């Protein structure tokens, strides 16, 4: 009482309080719900409901800050989805992906559209419903990857299908949204959407990578700039889409796909993008969705009836598509189960399309709530059945080992890294979908040129190696390389060794992993010609394996006169190749 008389207290008016409440939910929501073994996403949705106008009203219906930030979070979510997709895996299983994508899009799309007509939707709303039920989000993929089955063909097929279904969903969304919102005729809208998609594809897949290479090459050493560049790319693509009346999420997704190769999943930039996405943007989006949940509508029998119909249409279509992989792709039951569990989770694209459908007046609040019920059920079901099927997947024999999983790229303290050596390390890493870890190794008395490391980082970024350069100062370079290899848990070491100094220092060393000493390469650029294994009498399996990996898509050759890259054992002399620009890789096999 005394304090109240002395101090004038009033309710907070500024943005601080809504943000406080928002971030408390972001921290506490998932923590609490995960105690009950539910996915954290449900905690965010329920948290949004709790603080929203249909709950405690802490974030009122008139608040536009949180929903606006949520919209940015939605763009971010789609951007990250595009960035995270493993395009190599999609490419490797393209036939199965094409077959399965067709089925897992068309079947739920058909069922969903029919369901829409059955509950009284018009054609636009019914088609949009069909397309959003056909999409899926790779919510359980990290779980499968952690169980060591990320490279299973069925999993790769499911991942690839995500690209196709989500892109098709967003294209359907763009067309439906254009027709609904525009005042023009169907042909004009279709033309505008087609022109818009062409502009978007050109902008994202032709111009954006060029801008990105220019920017990252010039300013790539400044990490905040790299992150902000990614945000700018996302927002620019979203804005470009909106110029043509296409939803911004389509642009954000395309921007993610376009930058996919320049932002590797294991890189520093991706780590930052995922950090801010996971900590702020995406949770804010999910909480903002929770704000529109109206429990009074959700418990409404009509909402539950709609939800039941949507669940049957979605799960039925996805299940039938997975079942059809048995006759069409020869998949076994566990693979069918994994495909089903991988493709039923409805989150990002479903939610995005639903919210847009709501905003443009195609879907009512009841439909949004019914879709939210579907999302919750799909997330819970997929989280429960994924481990069951994944455990039953066959253990695949890896005849090639994991040489490229973690490749240490070593350069001396004063060495300017040659681009070709970095490309070679990247080629080796890509053979196992691995990563390259650049490190400077110097002896205690050697000089190190710190400014050149930053330039090296910028060059590596352009090659898709997005890692800070580590520094190892040790008693000697030889000891430093061995310690670095052990510290980074490497599977192979690539050393830029133009004058053979590292080779001579380490030639007789006992090492746990293969070390590749790269010399020759006078132009600095790795040629794409033939690769030869010059193994003499030893016929080392490691050497042949490395030769095959370094050849990549190019051919191996028995004739050294026509080779651009020669792989040979450590301790052997470089063959005389005259004036030709040949790359020599001398290999000290691990375990020797």
């Amino acid at each position, binding site marked *: 009482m005394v304090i109240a008389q002395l101090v004038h207290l009033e309710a907070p008016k500024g943005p601080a309080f809504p943000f406080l409440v928002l971030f408390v939910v972001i921290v506490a929501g998932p923590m609490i719900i995960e105690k009950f073994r539910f996915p954290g996403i449900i905690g965010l949705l329920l948290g949004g409901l709790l603080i929203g106008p249909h709950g405690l009203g802490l974030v009122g219906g008139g608040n536009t800050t949180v929903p606006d930030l949520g919209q940015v979070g939605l763009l971010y979510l789609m951007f990250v989805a595009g960035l995270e997709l493993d395009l190599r895996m999609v490419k490797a299983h393209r036939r199965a992906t094409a077959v399965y994508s067709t089925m897992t899009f068309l079947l739920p799309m058909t069922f969903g559209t029919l369901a829409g007509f059955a509950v009284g939707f018009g054609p636009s709303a019914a088609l949009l419903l069909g397309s959003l039920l056909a999409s899926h989000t790779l919510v359980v993929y990290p779980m499968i990857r952690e169980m060591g089955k990320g490279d299973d063909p069925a999993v790769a097929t499911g991942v690839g299908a995500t690209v196709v279904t989500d892109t098709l969903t967003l294209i359907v969304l763009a067309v439906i949204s254009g027709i609904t919102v*525009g*005042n023009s005729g169907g042909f004009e809208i279709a033309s505008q959407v087609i022109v818009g998609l062409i502009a978007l594809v050109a902008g994202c897949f032709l111009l954006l990578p060029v801008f990105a290479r220019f920017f990252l090459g010039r300013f790539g050493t400044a990490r905040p700039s790299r992150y902000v560049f990614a945000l700018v790319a996302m927002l620019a693509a979203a804005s470009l889409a909106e110029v043509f009346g296409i939803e911004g999420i389509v642009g954000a997704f395309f921007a993610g796909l376009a930058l996919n190769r320049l932002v590797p999943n294991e890189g520093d930039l991706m780590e930052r993008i995922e950090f801010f996405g996971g900590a702020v943007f995406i949770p804010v989006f999910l909480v903002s969705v929770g704000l529109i949940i109206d429990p009074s509508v959700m418990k409404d029998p009509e909402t539950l009836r709609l939800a039941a119909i949507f669940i049957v249409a979605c799960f039925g279509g996805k299940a039938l598509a997975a079942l059809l992989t048995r006759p069409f792709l020869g998949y076994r039951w566990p693979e069918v189960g994994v495909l089903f569990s991988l493709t039923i989770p409805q989150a990002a694209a479903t939610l995005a399309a639903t919210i847009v459908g709501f*905003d*443009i*007046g*195609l879907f*009512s609040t*009841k439909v949004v709530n019914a879709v939210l019920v579907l999302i919750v059920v799909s997330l819970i079901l997929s989280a429960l059945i994924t481990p069951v099927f994944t455990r039953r997947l066959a253990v695949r024999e890896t005849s090639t080992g994991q040489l490229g999983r973690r490749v240490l790229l070593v350069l001396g303290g004063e060495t300017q890294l040659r681009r070709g050596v970095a490309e070679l390390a990247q080629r080796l890493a890509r053979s196992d979908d691995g990563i390259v870890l650049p490190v400077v190794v110097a002896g205690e008395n050697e000089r190190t040129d710190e400014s050149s490391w930053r330039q090296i980082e910028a060059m590596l970024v352009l090659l898709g190696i997005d890692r800070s350069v580590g520094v190892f100062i040790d008693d000697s370079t030889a000891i430093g390389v061995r310690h670095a290899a052990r510290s980074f848990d490497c599977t192979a070491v690539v050393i830029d060794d133009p004058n053979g100094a590292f080779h001579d220092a380490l030639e007789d060393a006992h090492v746990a992993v293969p070390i590749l000493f790269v010399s020759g390469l006078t132009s600095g650029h790795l040629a794409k010609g033939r690769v030869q294994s010059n193994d003499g009498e030893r016929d080392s399996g490691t050497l042949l394996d490395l030769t095959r990996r370094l050849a990549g898509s190019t051919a191996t050759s028995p004739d050294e006169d026509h080779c651009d890259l020669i792989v040979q054992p450590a301790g052997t002399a470089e063959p005389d190749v005259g004036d030709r620009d040949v790359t020599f890789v001398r290999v000290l096999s691990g375990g020797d």
Partner: protein
Amino acid sequence: MWTGTPKHPTGGFEYELAHALAKHFGLAHVKVRVIPFAKLVQGHLGDADLALSDMTPTAEREQVLDFTGPYLAATPAALVRAGQSVPDLHAAQALTWAVGRSTTLLKFLNDTIQPSSSTLLTSSQHETTEAVERHKVDAGLLDLPIASAIARASGGKLHVAGQFELNDDVAAALPSGSDNVDAVDTAIRRFEADGTLSDLAQRWLGLSVNGISDDQVPLIRTES
């Protein structure tokens, strides 16, 4: 807002909005019912399915009515005679005001503007306007879309001197428990997306749908 007579309405923002809704739902006719605002906010809609009457949803009103999402932003605005200005809150406090007695504007006037002289309470927008025109008060407090439309129709006698900072959106009201709320709410969102609302606001109120008029009504700050 509508023009003409109840039997022969000739146009107006909300009348045309009602027509657009009727067309959207495949209905043939729009019937105009004139119900005092004070009765509307108590939930008395007569046989009407829908009230489009510049009504702001409040917790009190939501107990007797169901509301859709907002269809128009409506900040409080000062309608004054030509030549009169309201540059700041201090000047506003020195004026005599007229305001509708059952409106949310009355609370805003008392709590935020806090005029130094007594306020004239009116039963309709027409009465408020008339009080200003006849020099009974210095200013009338109305929703910006209404004030703007009245000023445009006055032939230069009246003008909107300023708008206050308050998010006071107006929404369609339906009888409590109506089955039509979800459908009307969805249709209004559609009209917002496809430009119907902004076209109507521009045509009948001289406003964009977010309440900013062509001639950019000045903002009167209420916080120091």
